[in-house]
């Protein structure tokens, strides 16, 4: 069957491209875009996929991950669609990729200059939990009126004694826009700050594109007496690889009831285990 290079027609790509350039020029601001129909359902990574399809070209090497795994159904199918329509190379190694599409994680290996990380976003609006109307949240962003976002964190402290947002912890980008970093764990938030690569975020269902350019200030919202903290994996070792200090999945052996931990970023774990003199 004949189809367009990178699936989308050229007019759709042009629109996405224009909006992406605006997004890079206005860090953290959600640029509305038309969000095309794709052969996967909205809410399954169509925002990220449209960004990837508008970016990808013959000299690219693509990596697709879903919750740290290159081999989950979602990652495999998105990668297949990209490859079927472009014939680009794929890789599992973060270092070797020019274009990385990811759901819910920023890889453990730091991004390099000129690498592009595309994040899939379900809910791009950080103020949505406090304000259901899009028209009003747009006005709140215009007025830089973020007391709702702060109040939400404050209420969590009042109710539970600490900030309970785990994934999608709101950040302030370049001192101007409060942004939802997509449901990456808090552990990944500091990787956005001053990073070498470009991060693009796409929400297909909500029709928004936004971006964090390289070397941009990204500060998690926090209070002086309740500072931002990442998930702690102190004293925890990956059962498979012996790695420490990385983001882990907590798993339970159903037969013995034993709890154990495994590195979430599987390609990183593999890379480390294949190194000579590796921990295990």
């Amino acid at each position, binding site marked *: 069957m004949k189809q367009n290079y990178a699936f989308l027609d050229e007019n759709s790509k042009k629109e996405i491209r224009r909006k992406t*350039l605006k997004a890079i020029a206005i860090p953290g601001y959600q640029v509305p875009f038309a969000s095309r129909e794709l052969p996967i359902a909205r809410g399954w990574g169509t925002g990220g996929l449209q960004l990837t399809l508008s970016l990808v070209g013959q000299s690219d090497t693509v990596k697709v991950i879903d919750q740290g795994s290159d081999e989950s159904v979602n990652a495999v199918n998105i990668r297949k669609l990209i490859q079927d329509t472009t014939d680009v190379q794929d890789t599992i190694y973060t270092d070797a990729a020019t274009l990385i599409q990811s759901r819910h994680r920023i890889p453990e290996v730091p991004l390099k200059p000129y690498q592009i990380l595309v994040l899939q976003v379900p809910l791009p609006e950080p103020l949505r939990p406090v304000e259901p109307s899009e028209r009003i949240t747009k006005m709140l962003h215009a007025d830089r009126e973020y007391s709702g976002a702060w109040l939400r964190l404050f209420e969590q402290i009042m109710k539970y004694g600490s900030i309970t947002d785990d994934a999608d912890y709101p950040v302030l980008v370049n001192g101007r826009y409060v942004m939802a970093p997509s449901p990456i764990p808090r552990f990944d938030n500091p990787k956005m700050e001053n990073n070498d690569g470009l991060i693009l975020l796409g929400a297909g269902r909500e029709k928004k594109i936004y971006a964090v350019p390289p070397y941009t200030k990204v500060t998690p919202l926090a209070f002086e007496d309740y500072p931002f903290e990442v998930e702690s994996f102190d004293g925890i070792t990956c059962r498979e690889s012996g790695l420490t200090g990385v983001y882990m999945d907590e798993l339970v052996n159903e037969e013995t009831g034993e709890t154990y931990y495994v590195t979430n970023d599987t390609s990183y774990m593999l890379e480390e285990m294949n190194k000579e003199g590796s921990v295990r």
Partner: protein
Amino acid sequence: MTTMVHNTQKHYRELVDLFSRPGEVRISTFDIPNFTNFPDAVLATVLTLFDNEITFYTQDQKNPGEFQTLTGGQFSENLSEADYVVVKEHELTEDVMRSLKTGTLGSPEKSATLIIEVDSIGEGRKYSLKGPGIKTANEIEMTFDPKWMIHRMELCSEFPLGIDMILIDRRNQLTVIPRTTITEVE
């Protein structure tokens, strides 16, 4: 095989790199019959970004027709509604700069992108750039009159409002100065 689809994709990726790294310079190798008065890199940028959803402004009599035929973009004589303004540096005037749209606080993306042909990038006045996308400071030399940079600073003084500039010289070198960049003339 490379076609227009691949050429515009390649050019777009150069633009993505340049927008996210203000002050870096790339050379465009986009090869296409060019019947406009602009360098190939300008035409490449037009072909990459324009379609029937955008309006553009340009001064020379010859170019609007060419851009329109090739992309379907709508020519507008009214500067204040143009999404893209394609000009040579010597065509810039204070009126042109003042008429550019800078977006609204609610929709700052509804602003103009300026595509300017300058004589040379790599020689001329030295500009020092800071802001998102720049690690410490980027320095760039180009023959671009600092007075236009001052006008740009005024237009960009109330972030997120502002204009983004794509500067292109006669040797098809490109550089981008988005609205977030703070520029200083040395």
